[in-house]
């Protein structure tokens, strides 16, 4: 059974309570029509439910989420997948600032651009590895203080002069990896990352995730893989290790 909720004029607390209660009772699929600005959709839910959002969801979509799949058929706002632990978020549009903040696991696939500070403080532990893929470009401070996880920027459909990421890319990064489709200008990099070529292991990881990404957005994997990628990795796992040591 699919539960359809008309979210027109519906306050977020009321809406999220309906979803949470129904999920408790075993409902596994939700379609939110006319959603607009409702915050915290899917937040903290640890069941394998699916939520389709027709409209722009509010801030902190999928925050602390632990299992559900969320499909957004519009742009998403700020703070998507904040501290998310498991599950999938697929955005058929662009996403705002600070997406994947402190993300600990799961997947965040964005068709278009991502805003400032994407993937800030993302982390990983053993098999828990968060993955963020953006089809477009990223704003400044992408991957800032990243401690783990995989970030992929494809830079599709961008203007000639438009860089794939803004300034301070990977600033303070000390774990995880960023793959970009095409070169990055060295002067836009944070001090803590270096640019490396991809090895066969990277290619395997990248192909696996991009295959899935391409299925969601009906893109041609071969075409995407035809362009060379570069890899950004932190120079040190403890860039600030001696900052306060005296």
């Amino acid at each position: 059974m699919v539960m359809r909720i008309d979210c027109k004029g519906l306050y977020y607390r009321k809406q999220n309570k309906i979803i949470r209660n129904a999920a408790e009772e075993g409902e596994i699929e939700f379609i939110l029509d006319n959603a607009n600005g409702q915050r915290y959709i899917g937040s903290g839910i640890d069941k394998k439910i699916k939520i389709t959002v027709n409209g722009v969801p509010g801030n902190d979509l999928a925050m602390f989420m632990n299992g559900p799949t969320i499909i957004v058929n519009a742009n998403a706002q700020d703070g998507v997948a904040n501290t998310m632990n498991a599950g999938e978020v697929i955005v058929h549009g662009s996403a705002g600032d600070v997406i994947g903040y402190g993300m600990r696991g799961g997947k965040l696939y964005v068709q278009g651009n991502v805003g400032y500070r994407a993937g800030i403080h993302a982390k990983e532990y053993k098999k828990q590895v968060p993955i963020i893929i953006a089809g477009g470009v990223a704003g400044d401070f992408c991957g800032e203080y990243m401690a783990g996880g995989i970030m992929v920027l494809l830079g599709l459909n961008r203007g000639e002069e438009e860089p794939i990421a803004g300034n301070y890319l990977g600033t303070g990064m000390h774990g995880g990896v960023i793959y970009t489709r095409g070169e990055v200008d060295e002067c836009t990099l944070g001090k803590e990352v270096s640019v490396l070529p991809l090895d066969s292991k990277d290619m395997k990881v990248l192909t696996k995730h991009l295959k899935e990404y391409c299925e969601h957005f009906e893109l041609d994997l071969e075409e995407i893989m035809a362009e060379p990628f570069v890899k950004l990795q932190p120079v040190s796992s403890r860039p600030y290790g001696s900052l306060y040591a005296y």
Partner: protein
Amino acid sequence: MRGNCYIPSGCSVSGIMSESGRRQDGNAIIKSIALMHDRANGLGGGFAAYGIYPRRSDLYAFHMMFDDIVAKERCEEHFKDRFDIVLDEEIPTRPGGAYEGMTAGRYDEEGVQPITDPPILWRYFMDIPEAKTKFVSDREYVVEKVMEINSTIDGAFVASSGKNMGAFKGVGYPEDIGVFYKLGEYKAYTWTAHGRFPTNTPGWWGGAHPFCLLDWSIVHNGEISSYGINKRYLEPFGYRMELRTDTEVVAYLFDLLVRRHNLPIELAAKVLASPFWVDIDRMPDRERRIATAIRQVYGSALLNGPFSIILGHSRGMVGFNDRIKLRPMTCARKDDMLYMSSEESAIREIAPDLDEVWSPRAGTPVIGELDEGVV
């Protein structure tokens, strides 16, 4: 904090402009800012509206706040010697007014929070006697008087002082403030709005946004950490910071930079949110020289700290962010309309189908301008 529940988040801003000068009533802007109810905490809300007094567009419209009748009398004495008061009247309000839309969390749990305890709200349409402006321009004269009133007349504050525009603000949630001031009965080509979540400064009627001087109005989400430097920079030019909050300096800086120093708006925005030196070093020669000069001349006008700001003025609306985008802003266009807001949903709420939606880059102003020959 108002009531006994925890309220997350920070301020909200929203702006609507028709570049062809079409005027629309205040219901849309109320609906837009109401959607971001949870970004505010009930300690301040306000609106600026342009084009609302077309029949008195040649007169300065002063929107005043008085603590008591004595302050009002003192202020009127002050006005009488300095202006020709063509008309004065109470600003129409709906005491106890409250917004009833559901999106603002107005369901059983929270209840409505009507606007209470307003100061005396009065407006004056005034002309300047010719003799007063022999040695000083009209607008300079008005600025002087606004500063005088705010700093010397106890209990009297100027909410706005431009022509054919006005500020409507107070303590409460913005959507309730909008209903309280009956904004559905005004028509404007530009509306800006603010929901306040005061952090460092008190929530009081004069301290709600927008902050206005002449036709400038500022709504701001964030915090001006450089307030002290900006204040010391502005004071020798005759500006007096009396409203106990940081945002005030932004309105006065625009007045100084654009009206008095004749900088184009783009350049003024570069003064307030100037590029970093490392980026200036990478610019082509001409731009680098301009950017360097701007930073050298106007170092003390630089705004530090997180902000997203919407500036309103008679000919347009300008939105911009701090240099590293620590506060959100989304812009959109549809036909002749320009929208800017803290959240995309607040735009979609009033304009579901848009031609274009984008998030401006940090420090880069988005400029709306009335078409040539309009108004």
